[in-house]
Structure formats: C-alpha cells, structure tokens
C-alpha cells in the first residue's frame, strides 16, 4: 500500500494535506449546535488524516530523495520552500500518532455533553495545534517557520486556559504566554542573524555555515534560548509544570509528547546548518542537559500533584535527550563516528520513546482525574482494584519512563550509557564516563518518583471517599493508552528494529557517508537486549501463571491492603505520597523542598489537626520572580505613559509622526 501511495501521490503533499485536514477538523463542530456530533466528526477526520499523514511520514523517512516545493506566497521574504527530509519526517511521526490518539481520548475525557461551553474551542484549537506543528516541521523559510511557530504557541495557550474560570489556570496561561514569547523573541533574532549570515531567509543548506565566527555563536545562543524555552531545558522551564498541570489531559499529552519536541527539532535543525562544530557546543549542550535531567526529576519527586509530577519528569527527559545530543555533537566535533552515532541514536530514540510513554502517562492521569476529580496524589489510593486495566497500562508507562527493561525507555538510555562508556579507553573525552553516575542518579530518582506516583494512586487503600467509587474508563480512553503501551513494549522488545526508524534522521547530520548501522558491535548488543527482554517477559508470564495456579488451589481471604491480618487498619496509616518522598527530597533541601506544615500536637490525645504541604518552585521564586519584580520597579516610570487621557495618546502618535518626518530630512 505504501508503494502504491508513493507512486500516485507525492508523500510530501499527502503529509501536508493531512495536516490541513487535522487543522480544520474542529471547524464543522463550531457550527453544529447539537453537542457531540462535531466532536465525533473532528475525531474521525483527525484519525483518518493522521493515518495517511503517518504513512506519508514513514515513506519520507525511508525515501532517498527529498522533494522541495517552492510556494509563491507573494510576501517579501524570499521563496517559501517546503520540504520534508528524514529529520522532519522523523519528528512528524509523533505529531500524527499523538494527535490521533489524543483526539480519540478526548471523546471519553472531555465529552461535549458534559462540557458544552468549552468543548468546541478545545476541539478547534487542538486541531490547529497539531496541524501547525506538522506544517512548521516542513518549513524551510524562517518567516514561514515563525508564522506556524506562533500559531502553535498561541493555540497551545488557548488550550491551556480551557478552564479559564479558574484563577490558577489563568495564571498558568499567562506565565506560559510570557515564556513562549520570550522564546519567540530569541527566534526572531535567530532568523535575522541566519539571514544575515546566509543571505536569505531560506534555511541554509546542511553543513554550509562556518562555525567559528561570532555570528555563529550568536546564532547558536539565540537558538538555544528560543528553542530551549519551548523544549523546557532547565533555566527556561518555568512555564512548563503549571501549563501542563492545568491543561486538559489530552492537551498535556500532545504538549509534552510533541510540542516540547518542536523545541528540540529547532535545536537539531540549527545544528545541521554548520559543519565541523566546535567542541564547546557539545559541552554546553551536555552540561545543560544533565543539569536539566537532574533538577527536573528532583522537582518531580517533590510534587504532590500528579500532573505536575509528570510535567517535571518531561523536563528530566528533555534533559536526557539534550545530554545525548551534546554527546553526539562531541562525537561529531572530534570526528568520532561511534560516539556521534550512539549519542544521536540515543537522543532520537529517546525522543520517540518519550513521545510514546509520556502521552500514555498523561492519558492515564486523565483517566484518574476523570474518575476522582482531583490531581492530589495524597487523596488517592487503591484505584487499581476498581480500574485494573488502566492501572496495568499506567504501570507499563511508569516502568518505561524509569528505563527498566524490557521496555523502551531502557533501550534509549542504554544507547546513551554506551556513548558515555565508549570513550573510556580512548585518549580523548574520557571524562564522558563521569556523566554515567549522574545519569544513574537521575534514573534512580525517576524510579522513586514513579514508584511514589504509581503506588500512592493505585495501590494501598483509598485515602478519601471519592477514590472508592471509581470505575474502569471507557473504550475511547483505554484504546489510546493501550496503543502507546503496545508501542512501548514493541520498541523495548525489538530495539534493533526501532533503530531503523532513527538511522535515516541521523544521516542528515552526517551526510555523505554510509551510516555505521552496527558501529563496534553495538547492534549485536541490542540484539541481546531483545533476547533478554523476551526472556524477562516469558519469566513474568510463567511467574504470573504459577501464582494464579497457586491462588486457585489455596483459596484466599480478603482484607485491606497492608492490613496484615489486622482488620481495623485505617487508610491514614499508610504512607502518603508526600511522606513517601519526604526522605529523598530532604537530601536536596537547598534546591527544592516539600514545605510540610506540621500541626503542633499537645497532650496525650491530641485533637483533630491538619497537615499540609506545598512543593516550592525554587527557581521561579528565587530567580525569575525577583527579576520580574525588579523589571516592574525599574520600568514603573513607563506606567505614567498609560494614564487614560485619550488626547494625550493622540499626541503620542502625532509626536511619533512628527519625529519621523523630521528624521526623513
């Protein structure tokens, strides 16, 4: 079927047409007053368009030649070129997959019947967001790229503030808007610099720019700030937890799973413009990445809001990807093809993986919020008894994100570790091996964070009344989760096959030479991972069957979890989410705190008292907020210009005009 498709239509056109349909899928619904039908129609259109777009992206990923279209758009910014090379095609895969499954998920999670006032705009902007991301991946002109970048940023804003009647949602939206436009400002500078360097606003050919000029450094810096703010690399991440936590869950899924990757795509794309990058670029990316990963997971650990935890873990994963990209750049700089391959493969595969397990987890969080109406993990517990299927799928996501075999997170992290260790016997870059314990620390803390997440939500006994009455989610919500869980398992079990999707995109960075598909035998190791994974699955199956068999023979009694025979246990005796992470978080007291407010107890039988905790946002509170209030104070004089007197406003315009006329002479 794929070949037939290629013969008849150009896949680039197919991909763009799909994006067009996804973008306008929400429009019919705006004019249908009866709730429900428009949403259903949008979902059907989105899924159908995504399937064709996905097929086109696959064809483009593996095709040898790239078609470039020059659109005559009548704007004075040079020709508007559109093309999809393997790198763009690679990033297109998650766009279509997550857009389609999120759209299906929305049917159950945000049904029009229950949310008649917000569903229409939500469906509309969801399509616009997905389509704008697909189009910006195809853009080869700076202005065209920026246009769709803005469409993406603004539509995401409207999605974040879907529940705009809530104060915290509006605040999160504002923070996001400020952060995204700070990034956009850097991107305007980036594309101006690029056009000054290459002579036109069309993207320069890969490897055509010199890296050792001051302009190149400026280009890289602006790209890092602009794209890094979107991706959520550490000093620029402040918008991310609030925005992800307050958006509807399928929106969080597409924002975390796909929109953050657009920032990474920007960094990847900018790096392709240069040949022979200096070693310092790799060092900066690696250091920023590993710090992001470390602090991101640390913040995740301290959260009690389940979606905030997931959002902070996105920062961690973006950090891991950036580290790996930095390692790859070190490899390219030092002409070490093995290192470059391992770093690049690790980064790209982790991008793919993260865009599978993070939407899975955010969908899971949507299921939980839909069932309980809360995001506070301290109030949940025991949900696995009532929704075993959702619990199993959520568990698969959690295990994947922690990088535990036999699931996909392990494969990409394995490649990254291999990169660190590959230079241990070389004369240069030996220090890379020091990154391994840091990444291991990140992995360990991720394990604690996701154990906290899973166990406080799904295990134990219910901690509040609403956790007791939950039920299994419907088919539309389970199917998207199952789809991503299946992808996680497949990549985990067949890592060698997964690498085939990554290799064409790596070629964009190292053009001219054949890819070392199996550098230094690492491919064979991946084959062994596959074997280990399969045997792990088999072992788990055997143990489960044996356990079932034993349970059937033995007969069982039921009691409350952790009751241990004592039937008067109360749910408040178990570890809560906050208390679970109290010790590991306290180690990093200076950086992040859970800020637990304990009641003062007195007497032998103290009365009822409350204990609360609120995780601190150190960076936002200590650095960004003071900076903003400083700016507010130092620019207070400008507020005098805004006084409400209309005629003086006219004088401003008049004065500007007058000065311009004088200046013309």
């Amino acid at each position, binding site marked *: 079927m794929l070949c037939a498709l290629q013969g008849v239509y150009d896949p680039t056109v197919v991909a763009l047409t799909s994006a067009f349909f996804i973008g306008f899928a929400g429009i019919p619904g705006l004019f249908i007053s009866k709730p429900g039908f428009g949403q259903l129609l949008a979902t059907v259109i989105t899924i159908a368009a995504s399937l064709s777009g996905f097929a086109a992206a696959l064809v483009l990923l593996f095709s040898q030649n790239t078609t470039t279209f020059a659109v005559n758009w009548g704007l004075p910014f040079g020709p508007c070129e559109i093309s999809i090379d393997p790198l763009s095609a690679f990033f297109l895969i998650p766009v279509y997959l997550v857009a389609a499954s999120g759209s299906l998920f929305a049917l159950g999670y945000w049904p029009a019947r229950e949310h008649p006032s917000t569903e229409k705009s939500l469906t509309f902007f969801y399509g616009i967001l997905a389509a704008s991301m697909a189009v910006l991946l195809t853009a080869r002109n700076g202005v065209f790229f920026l246009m769709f970048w803005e469409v993406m940023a603004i539509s995401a804003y409207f999605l974040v503030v879907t529940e705009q009647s809530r104060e915290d949602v509006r605040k999160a939206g504002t923070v996001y808007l400020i952060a995204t436009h700070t990034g956009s400002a850097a991107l305007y500078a980036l594309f101006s610099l690029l056009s000054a360097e290459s002579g036109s606003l069309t993207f320069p050919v890969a490897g055509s720019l010199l890296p050792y000029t001051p302009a190149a450094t400026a280009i890289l810096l602006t790209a890092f700030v602009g794209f890094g703010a979107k991706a959520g690399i550490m000093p620029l991440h402040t918008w991310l937890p609030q925005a992800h936590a307050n958006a509807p869950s399928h929106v969080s899924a597409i924002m975390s799973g796909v929109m953050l990757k657009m920032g990474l795509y920007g960094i990847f794309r900018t790096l392709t413009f240069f040949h022979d990058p200096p070693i310092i670029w790799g060092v900066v990316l690696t250091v920023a990445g590993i710090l992001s990963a470390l602090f991101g997971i640390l913040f995740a650990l301290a959260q009690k809001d389940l979606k905030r935890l997931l959002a902070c873990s996105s920062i961690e994963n973006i950090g891991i990807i950036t580290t790996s990209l930095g390692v790859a750049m070190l490899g390219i700089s030092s002409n070490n093809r093995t290192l470059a391959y391992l770093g690049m493969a690790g980064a790209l595969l982790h991008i793919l993986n993260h865009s599978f397990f993070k939407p899975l987890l955010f969908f899971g969080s949507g299921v939980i919020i839909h069932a309980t109406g809360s995001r506070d993990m301290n109030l949940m517990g025991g949900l696995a008894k009532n929704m075993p299927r959702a619990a199993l799928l959520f568990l698969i996501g959690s295990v994947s994100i922690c990088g535990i075999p036999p699931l996909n997170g392990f494969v990409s992290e394995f490649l990254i570790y291999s990169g660190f260790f590959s230079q241990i016997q070389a004369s240069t870059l030996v220090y890379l091996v020091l990154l391994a314990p840091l990444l291991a620390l990140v992995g360990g803390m991720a394990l604690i964070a996701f154990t906290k997440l899973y166990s406080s939500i799904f295990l134990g006994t219910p901690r509040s009344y609403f956790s007791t009455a939950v039920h299994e989610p419907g088919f539309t919500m389970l199917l998207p989760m199952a789809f991503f869980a299946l992808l996680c398992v497949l990549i985990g079990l067949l890592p060698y096959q997964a690498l085939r999707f990554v290799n064409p995109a790596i070629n964009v960075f190292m053009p001219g030479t054949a890819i070392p598909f199996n550098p230094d035998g690492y491919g064979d190791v991946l084959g062994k991972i596959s074997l280990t994974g399969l045997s792990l699955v088999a072992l788990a199956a055997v143990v489960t069957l044996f356990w079932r068999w034993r349970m059937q023979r033995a007969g069982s009694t039921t009691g409350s979890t952790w009751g241990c025979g004592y039937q008067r246990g109360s749910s408040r005796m178990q570890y809560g989410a906050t208390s679970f992470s109290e010790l590991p978080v306290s180690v990093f007291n200076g950086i992040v705190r859970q800020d637990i407010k304990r009641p003062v107890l007195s007497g032998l039988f103290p009365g009822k008292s409350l204990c609360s905790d609120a995780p601190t946002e150190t960076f936002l509170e200590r650095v960004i907020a003071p900076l903003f209030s400083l700016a507010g104070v130092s620019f207070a004089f400008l507020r005098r210009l805004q006084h*409400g007197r209309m*005629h003086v406003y*006219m004088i401003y*315009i*008049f004065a500007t*005009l007058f000065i311009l*006329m004088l200046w013309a*002479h």
Partner: protein
Amino acid sequence: MITIADQLLVLVLLINFVVLGTSRLIFSIRAVAVQGVILGVLPALIHPFSWHLVGIISMILVTKGVVIPMMLSRAMRSAEIKREAEPYLGYVPTLLLGAVFTALSFGFAGKLPMLAEHQNYIFVPASMATLMAGFLILTTRRKAISQVIGYLVLENGIFIFGLLLADAMPIMVEAGALLDLLVGTFVMGIVINYISREFASLDTSRLTSLKEE
C-alpha cells in the same frame, strides 16, 4: 484645470481653520461635510473620465456629504450638547498652531522627492496640513463628537494624498477606505452613546477612570 484644483485645495485648508476655530459643534460638522464634498469633486477635475471615477465620486459624496453628517448631528442631538465648552487648549492657540503646522507641511513637502507630474500641485502639502489639523482637533478637544470630527478631518487629509494615486488605486481599496470610515464613525457613534449613558456627559477626560491601577 490645475488651478481650479489648487483653489479648491486652498478652500479645504481654510475649512481646516474653520473647524479649528469654532466652538459650535453643528458648524464644525457642516464644515467637515463641505470639505468632504469638495474633496469628492476634486478627482473629477484632475483625472480623465471613467466609470470607476464616477463610482468613487458618487460614493464619496453620499457618504461624506450626507450619511456621516446626519449620523453626527443625530448623535449630537441625542446627547444634548451644542458646544465644545472647555477644550484643553484655547481656540486662538489652536488656530496659531494650525497655522504653524500648515507652514511646516508646505516646507516639508517642498523637500520630498516627488514625480515630476505631481510637483506643481499643492496636493501633498494640503494633505499633510489637513492631517495635522485633524490631529490637533483630536488632541485638543474634550468632547467625543469633536474627536469624531477630528478623525474625519484626519481621514480627509489621507484622502487628498490618495487622490494622487486614484488611477492606480483599484476600486476595492477606495471602497474599503470608505467603508472603514463609515464603520469608524458608526462605532464612534455607539461609543458616544455609551459614554454619555455611563458618565452622564460626553467628556472623554472621564475615561481616565477606566485606567488600570
């Protein structure tokens, strides 16, 4: 022909001073209407006959000569005001400023690099002087209706500039500009009604209470 056009433009400039110097609103409205009519006739004098031109002229005459003045005087009657009582700047200083700006615009236009066929007209200086007069009215008057009048004078100034291009300008642009003006006046009319209902006066200086604290 050129001399007639130039003399009409001088008339337009004089009307600017009339509007700048009078405190009676109904008189300003009529003066601006006359200005609009004169400007409507002008294209007929400088461009050869074409149906496109006829279309433009009739639209301008109807809009600027009839519809907008009617809307404004109705707004004035419903708001029950006759005079601009206390402008921010007195009438004599405004007139003097208007004279200064007119002189300046003649000086400025003399230095602009223009096409040879436009050089003998006083289109560009008249356009700029009218524009500035509009700005002066906008900035010195307090009542919302005066603001609308200022806006109209400002638009007339822009229109004079556009006259130079009437051949090159497609009818859609003209129609768009006229529609813009009509809608602008319409919105202003609504705003005026709301201001007078909300603040029991048409004084735009009361709008400072809408300022963000």
